[in-house]
């Protein structure tokens, strides 16, 4: 059975997207990629600190991965557009995760500025994957302005709290004719599995793997959980009942 996710003309076997932040060493990344089976990986763009120069994360990303640079650090559409253009000029390809945040406590995204940035960048030929709160009207406008997917949060970034926005995610999955990728907040493989069972197109996570005691093993677990959840969605979950319903025949008992 072929069940591929197609975004921006690229077919993906794996529905797990991973980040590259918070690892104790960037040298772990190749093994994380391998164990997770992921084909899409996020990176960020920052000023070089001339007082403490460090290595470049790109040196550790296996070739063939779809790079998904983010616009983290952008506080408005204009800054996000600037970062996206820089990433593209750096040879990062034309995929971009729009992340516009001006709230430093909960890191919740600014829907209005995200829509503005998406419209401009999609018009320039970028494959735009915007990070959003699971707001139906924001998602609908992103469809209008040319987003390639929408990426609603399950819980605040880096919180590992799981699918706190589950009811709203379900609405987006039902109503939005684009891949819905649950991004942020996923803490456990069971969270990712549940999102996939609900019909999410993919999951994007970073902290849950990077903060595990054994990140490589957790990467493998997440890869399996996402694949399992996807298969369950395709299989169609059975209905739930209030009362018991015997799985064995209720006739032919050995007593009268």
């Amino acid at each position, binding site marked *: 059975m072929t069940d591929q996710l197609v975004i921006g003309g690229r077919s993906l076997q794996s529905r797990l997207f991973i*980040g*590259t*932040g*918070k*690892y104790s060493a*960037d040298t772990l*990344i190749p093994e994380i990629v391998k164990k997770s089976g992921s084909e899409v990986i*996020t*990176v*960020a*763009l*920052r*000023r*070089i*600190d*001339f007082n403490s*120069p460090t290595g*470049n*994360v*790109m*040196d550790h990303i296996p070739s063939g991965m779809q790079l998904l*640079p*983010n616009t*983290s650090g952008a506080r408005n559409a204009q800054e996000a557009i*600037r970062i996206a*253009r*820089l*990433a593209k*000029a*750096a040879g*990062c390809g034309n995929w971009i995760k729009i992340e516009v945040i001006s709230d430093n406590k909960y890191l919740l995204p600014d829907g209005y500025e995200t829509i503005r940035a998406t419209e401009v960048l999609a018009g320039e030929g970028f494959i735009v994957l915007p990070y959003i709160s699971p707001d139906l009207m924001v998602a609908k406008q992103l469809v209008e302005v040319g987003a390639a997917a929408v990426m609603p949060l399950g819980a605040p*970034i*880096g919180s590992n709290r799981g699918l706190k926005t589950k009811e709203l995610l379900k609405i987006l999955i039902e109503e939005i004719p684009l891949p819905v990728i649950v991004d*942020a907040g996923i803490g456990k493989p069971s969270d990712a599995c549940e999102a996939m069972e609900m019909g999410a197109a993919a999951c*994007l*996570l*970073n*902290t849950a793997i990077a903060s595990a005691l054994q990140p490589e093993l957790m990467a493998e677990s997440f890869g399996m959980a996402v694949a399992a959840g996807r298969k369950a969605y395709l299989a169609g979950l059975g209905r739930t009942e209030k009362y018991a319903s015997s799985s064995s025949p209720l006739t032919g008992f050995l007593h009268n």
Partner: protein
Amino acid sequence: MEVVLNGVVTDVDQEMNLWEFLLSKELNLETIIVEHNEVIVKKQEWKTMILQDKDRLEVLKFVGGG
């Protein structure tokens, strides 16, 4: 003359092009991105761009992120 490098005023002793300036900062030139007065400068243009007083340079690289 002075240029503003990643927000910090930096002295430049002699006339030099952008490529020479970046080399003097001991950077791996393969993996960096440069903005000159808010315009992205392609690598092939680094050797022909002579730095001017008060130029604003942003020198960036990719880091881990989610």
